């Protein structure tokens, strides 16, 4: 992975058939022979393996190291605990994908496994090639989560910008794009995402469809209470939704938390290279920064939804420069969350540790959906690289600052942009933001809508690039952003598009000259915007008019734009938008640099 800021996508494409290395696998099997074999096989797949021969031990390990694993593989028959039980626990508590194994391939057993939430059921003897592709389950989950929380389709080619976490570098070699399963269709929001995302959990309760509104209420409640102090009961009380049960909220909260964590992680990775995490900053106050890449301030009544592409807070804050790319290459992507957290607490101008406030992850609501990262896969089709660590959590500080650690950007001045695109107002808004992002941005329930104006990719990309180019910490002003935004909505939107974005993003440093070049080539209709996958670029916050606000990742970006009210309305929570603004980062940064 390139440590450089946006490495060109080509580098990420260079790896052929490389698996998403570093996937953190926990293998649980009481059979010592199999345990050893599986460990060897997984290591050969370049995965990071931890073995456990007791189910209880595995559970405590998972509990201890929250977010320390990406996937669990477990045998069905174990002496201390039934494999299905373990499966249930993992699904409920950690919400990780679990693969079951057994020498018994009886249909009833397989069925049971699926019923309990297993994402796959392997028969022993297991061949190495069967293990090679287990990453797909992690990926699928992320997508579903994004969808779940965002209601938007994951952006196509969600991908972390080139050079970023390139998890999929190899996997998507050849420029294969990670196509997010669902293409955003207009403003259609999938309300059934929740169902999908529940696949891995074995929860069998009646499904509650977490609509955008419901999720908004949820996030609002969480924000009010304070992420750290939040609890299902309190949320439930605040939400005031009579038919909702505490269990519903509890499970949703759990997912949300995990989601944020993942976003954070992803963001971190992303910020490294893209620098502009788009996070939904929903803090009413200027937020010190968004962790990943975008710093944005949230002013009261401004809801800036920065779409934090991902991961984490850490990356966001850190990225004052668009690209931090990784130093992690793929390897880094798998750094344990803790590492990211370490980064956090860097000094931030606002006193908020925009830089990876790893520690603050919990505080932030990460609106970024990990998937977002994947979504934009710029042409390079660099598969979204996403860190296996999920999306970082956006620190959400109650009260004044919304630290979106993830995104460092400040929401651009929305008003101006808002009108740029016609169309529909955000109602369905959310172009592609993960609900979380929106949530983040909107402490008051307003979400910064990111509208991605779909414009020609290239045009935008370059524009974005330009914008991104400068990353001076000038985010203080809203104007720059605004300007940028205004002039280059297209550019911003560009990010969304496929492929080219990658290149755009990677360029962080370019000056935003071209922002206007693309001009308003066309303002995508809301649908379009929404549908646009998030190209590599990172986040775009869409204003009501579907303008795309990009929040570059600038540590100090202080642009706090007032987000027009209407922006928030539409945050829809159940869209799958994957916005990985963070992925786009570099470009975004430029946007805001004055």
């Amino acid at each position, binding site marked *: 992975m390139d440590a450089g800021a946006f490495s060109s996508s080509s580098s990420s494409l260079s790896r052929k058939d490389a698996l998403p290395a570093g996937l953190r696998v926990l293998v649980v099997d*009481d*059979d*010592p*022979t*199999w345990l*050893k*074999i599986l460990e*060897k*096989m997984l290591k*050969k797949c370049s995965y990071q393996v931890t073995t456990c021969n007791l189910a209880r031990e595995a559970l405590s390990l998972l509990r201890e190291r929250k977010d320390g694993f990406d996937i669990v593989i477990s*045998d069905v*028959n174990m002496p201390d605990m039934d494999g299905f039980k373990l499966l249930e626990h993992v699904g409920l508590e950690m919400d990780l994908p679990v693969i079951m194994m*057994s*020498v*018994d391939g009886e249909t009833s057993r397989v069925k049971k496994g699926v019923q309990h939430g297993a994402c796959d059921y392997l028969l*022993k*003897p297991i*061949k*190495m090639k069967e293990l090679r592709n287990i990453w797909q389950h992690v990926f699928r989950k992320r997508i579903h989560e994004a969808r779940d929380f965002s209601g938007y389709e994951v952006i196509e080619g969600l991908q972390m910008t080139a050079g970023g976490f390139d998890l999929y570098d190899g996997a998507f070699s050849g420029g294969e794009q990670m196509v997010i399963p669902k293409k955003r269709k207009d403003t259609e929001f999938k309300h059934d995402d929740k169902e999908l995302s529940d696949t891995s959990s074995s929860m069998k309760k009646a499904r509650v469809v977490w609509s955008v509104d419901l999720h908004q209420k949820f996030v609002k409640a969480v924000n009010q209470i304070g992420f750290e102090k939040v609890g299902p009961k309190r949320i439930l009380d605040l939400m005031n939704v009579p038919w909702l049960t505490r269990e519903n909220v509890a499970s949703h909260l759990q997912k949300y938390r995990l989601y944020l964590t993942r976003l954070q992680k992803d963001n971190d990775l992303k910020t490294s290279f893209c620098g502009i995490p788009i996070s939904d900053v929903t803090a009413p106050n200027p937020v010190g920064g968004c962790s990943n890449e975008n710093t944005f301030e949230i002013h009261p009544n401004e809801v800036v939804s920065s779409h934090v592409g991902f991961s984490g807070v850490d990356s966001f804050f850190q990225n004052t420069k668009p690209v931090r790319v990784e130093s992690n290459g793929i390897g880094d992507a798998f750094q344990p969350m803790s590492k990211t957290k370490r980064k956090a607490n860097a000094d931030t101008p606002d006193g908020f540790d925009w830089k990876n406030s790893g520690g603050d992850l919990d505080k932030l609501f990460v609106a970024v959906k990990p998937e977002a990262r994947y979504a934009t896969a710029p042409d390079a089709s660099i598969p979204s690289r996403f860190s296996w660590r999920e999306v970082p959590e956006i620190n959400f500080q109650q009260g004044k600052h919304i630290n979106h650690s993830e995104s460092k950007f400040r929401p651009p001045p929305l008003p101006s942009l808002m009108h740029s695109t016609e169309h529909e107002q955000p109602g369905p808004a959310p172009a592609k933001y993960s609900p979380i992002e929106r949530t983040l941005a909107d402490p008051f329930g307003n979400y910064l809508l990111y509208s991605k104006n779909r414009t020609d990719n290239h045009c935008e990309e370059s524009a974005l690039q330009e914008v991104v180019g400068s990353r001076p910490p000038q985010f203080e002003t809203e104007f720059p952003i605004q300007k940028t935004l205004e002039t280059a909505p297209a550019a911003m939107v560009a990010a969304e598009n496929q492929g080219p974005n990658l290149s755009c993003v990677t360029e962080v440093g370019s000056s935003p000259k071209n922002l206007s070049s693309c001009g308003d080539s066309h303002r995508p209709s809301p649908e379009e915007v929404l549908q646009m996958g998030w190209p590599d670029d990172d986040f775009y916050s869409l204003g009501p008019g579907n303008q795309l606000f990009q929040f570059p990742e600038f540590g100090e970006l202080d642009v706090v734009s007032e987000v027009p009210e209407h922006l928030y309305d539409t945050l829809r929570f159940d869209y799958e938008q994957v916005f990985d603004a963070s992925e786009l980062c570099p470009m975004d940064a430029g946007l805001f640099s004055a």
Partner: protein
Amino acid sequence: MEKKQQLHRQVVMMRQSLFDQGYVDDQFVQLEELQDDTNPNFVEEIVTLYYRDSARLISSIEQALERSPLDFDKLDNLMHQFRGSSSSIGARKVKAECTQFGEHCVGGNGEGCMRSFQRMKREYSALRKKLEAYFQVARQAGPMDTASRSN
């Protein structure tokens, strides 16, 4: 180096007969493929682990078979574990006997279980002998390139 060559040839032949005589199946090849510089004796290590684990299981089954009345569930469970373990090295014939045993358990057929168990033990012993001999010669022959090993 005639001796060496001879040994090498012997290894190849012995290995081939493991497959031809149905002692091991493709899983064994999987293990061989996992062997690399980091784990140059991977296959043998795994097989050794298998011996240890299977010895334990066999003794447990024996004990369970001495009970009266027979606890078929327990027997089935133990055999299931044994089967899983045997699948790890691709012990084909042993696995087949395990399946048989399992069927007898399900059918509550104590006699059938006993017979099946005896057969299984015989297969297991035979396999062990074969593998031990094979590894011994392989060690003597020294590292061989894959080409000569591959079948």
